[in-house]
Every structure is written in C-alpha cells, then in structure tokens.
C-alpha cells in the first residue's frame, strides 16, 4: 500500500508506482486533493461564520439598546461553570489538534486515543451545559409565559428576556454543533482504528479538526459576551 511513504516527495510529477487507494481519479496527487478539500471545508466554515455572525450582530444591537438589562441577566449565569467549561472546550481543541498531529505522523493508536479523548471532553462540556440549562428552567429564566426572574428589577425584565432568548439561541446552536460533531468523531475513530488513514492520507481527520476548532472559537467569544458582561454588579 504505502510502503516507504515517509520518503515520498511532496509534489508528485513523477511516475509513482501505484496510485494511493484514497486518491480520487480527478486529482493529480494527494496534495492537490487535500488542498481542494481544505478550501472546500473553509468555504463551509465561512458560511458558518455568517450563520453565527447574524446572532452576534443581534446580540450587539440588543445589548447596546438594553445595557443594564443585559448586565443584570448576565449575572444570573454561573460564571465558575462557564469558566470550567471554557477550559474543558479548549482542552478538547487541544486533544483534537493532537489527534490531527498523530494522524500526520501515521500513529494509528494515538489517533484513536486523542479522538476519543476529544469525545470525552466534548461530552463533559455538554453535560455541564445540561446542568446550566436545568438551572435556568428551575429559576424561570427561560423566555416565554413563565419568564419570571426573581433578582431582576421589573423594568429590566423585558430586556433580560431578550438576553435569555439570545443566550439559548447562541449556546443552543453552539451545543448543536457539538452534538452533531461527536458522532462524526466516533466514526473517524472507528475508521482510524481499522487503518483507513495513513500518514499520507488523513484529510477527513484534519478537516474535522477545522470544524471542531471553529466551534471552539465561537465559544471563545460566547464566554465573555454572555457570562462576563458586568459580574461585579455596578
């Protein structure tokens, strides 16, 4: 299959003995195929930037219109849990990066281990999110007829309800991305375990890494914007 692939040249103009089994016939080389795939993935991620971007724009406009209500509503969130979850998610980005690293080195077992570690950390993040959401339901912080925050002055409640609408929309869309990502990670881990990838062909792992890191970036902005508006109070 790929005997001696370590010494394989980056750009194959030459007559290679047998084409790599994962090389599609409409590409000249694995490198060209990978470059094309990477650009395609980034094109998708640009649409994701605009997808989340619309919500960030809404957030900005409503926060400028209701600064005090947003600050008061933000104080209802559990900052320590948010901070821990930020560490957990950055940790999962790190294990993902190490999975991609191991794939580039052709270390099959390490790839499986790092991908599963990413699944574990991603699941931990979602678990904390479940606890947080439960708290919001229990304390009547979910927008709608039962919205009745105890600690927020009546004149700020309308704005606080807008804040929580955005809180659930943004963290919900973010969590949805992770919920969709975890099964893909499991499939990639299974394929890696079965030897589907090698050091010359591991594009799916690398591209999934891009997706996972993108989700991490979204949270890097969500954490300060949702949890840390004015935690001291006044």
């Amino acid at each position, binding site marked *: 299959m790929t005997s001696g692939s370590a010494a394989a040249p*980056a750009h194959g103009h030459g007559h290679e003995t047998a084409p790599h089994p994962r090389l599609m016939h409409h590409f000249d080389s694995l*490198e*060209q195929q*990978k*470059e094309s795939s*990477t*650009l395609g993935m*980034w*094109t998708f*991620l*640009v649409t994701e*930037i*605009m997808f989340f*971007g619309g919500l*960030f*724009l809404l957030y*900005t*406009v409503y926060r*400028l*219109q209701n*600064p005090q209500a947003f600050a008061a509503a933000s104080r209802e969130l559990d*900052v320590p849990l948010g*901070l821990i979850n*930020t*560490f957990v998610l*950055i*940790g999962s*980005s*790190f294990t*993902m*990066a*190490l999975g991609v*690293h191991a794939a*580039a*080195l052709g270390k099959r077992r390490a790839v499986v281990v790092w991908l599963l570690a990413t699944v574990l950390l991603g699941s931990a993040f979602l678990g904390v999110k479940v606890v947080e959401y439960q708290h919001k339901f229990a304390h009547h912080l979910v927008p709608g007829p039962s919205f009745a925050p105890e600690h927020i002055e009546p004149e700020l409640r309308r704005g606080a309800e807008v804040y929580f609408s955005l809180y659930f929309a943004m963290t919900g869309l973010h969590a949805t991305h992770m919920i969709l990502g975890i099964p893909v990670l499991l499939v990639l881990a299974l394929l890696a375990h079965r030897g589907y990838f090698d050091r010359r062909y591991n594009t799916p792992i*690398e591209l999934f*890494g*891009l997706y996972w*890191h*993108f989700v*991490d*970036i979204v949270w*890097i*902005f969500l*954490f*300060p*914007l949702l949890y*840390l508006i*004015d*935690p*001291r109070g006044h």
Partner: protein
Amino acid sequence: MSDHIVPFKTYLGVFVALMILTFVTYAAAYENFGSHTLNVAIALGIAVTKATLVVLFFMHVKYSPRMVAVFVVVGFAWLALMIVGILTDYWTRGWIGQ
C-alpha cells in the same frame, strides 16, 4: 501543500496560552478599568487574540496555502463589514433626538 508537520511543542504552547488568556479574561471582568467600554474592549481583544492563535496554529492556516488564508480573511472581513455597517445605523440612532 503542507507536508509541514507542526511540532508538538507548538500545540502545547498554544494550548497553555489559550488557558492563561481564558483566566485573564475571567479576572479582567472583575476589575474596574474606569469605563465599562474599556472592559468590553479588553474582553474582545483577548477573545480575538485567542481566536487568532486557534486559526493560525490549531487550524494550520499559518502553514496552509495562501488561498486558504484569503478565504479565512475574507470570511471574517465580511462579518466585520456586516456588523460595522449595521451599527452605523443602530449605534448612532439615539444621537439624533438629543
């Protein structure tokens, strides 16, 4: 394309930097810098720095073909254009009646 393999040390360094910056974001939110706008600017500055680290190193854009970098920059530029463009309206709307 990138036959370049990013060394483990680079990943570790970026990870540690991201963790420290996360803690700085948290600590800075409790500090009083004199104006609330400054707090927002610091929080967003740190977030942009973290995002840039992730894009360049974890997402390999530093080691990818130029065309990938063009796609990334254009994506974020369009987002900035959308937000700035809309805010020129919303942010300044209240100024008129005063």
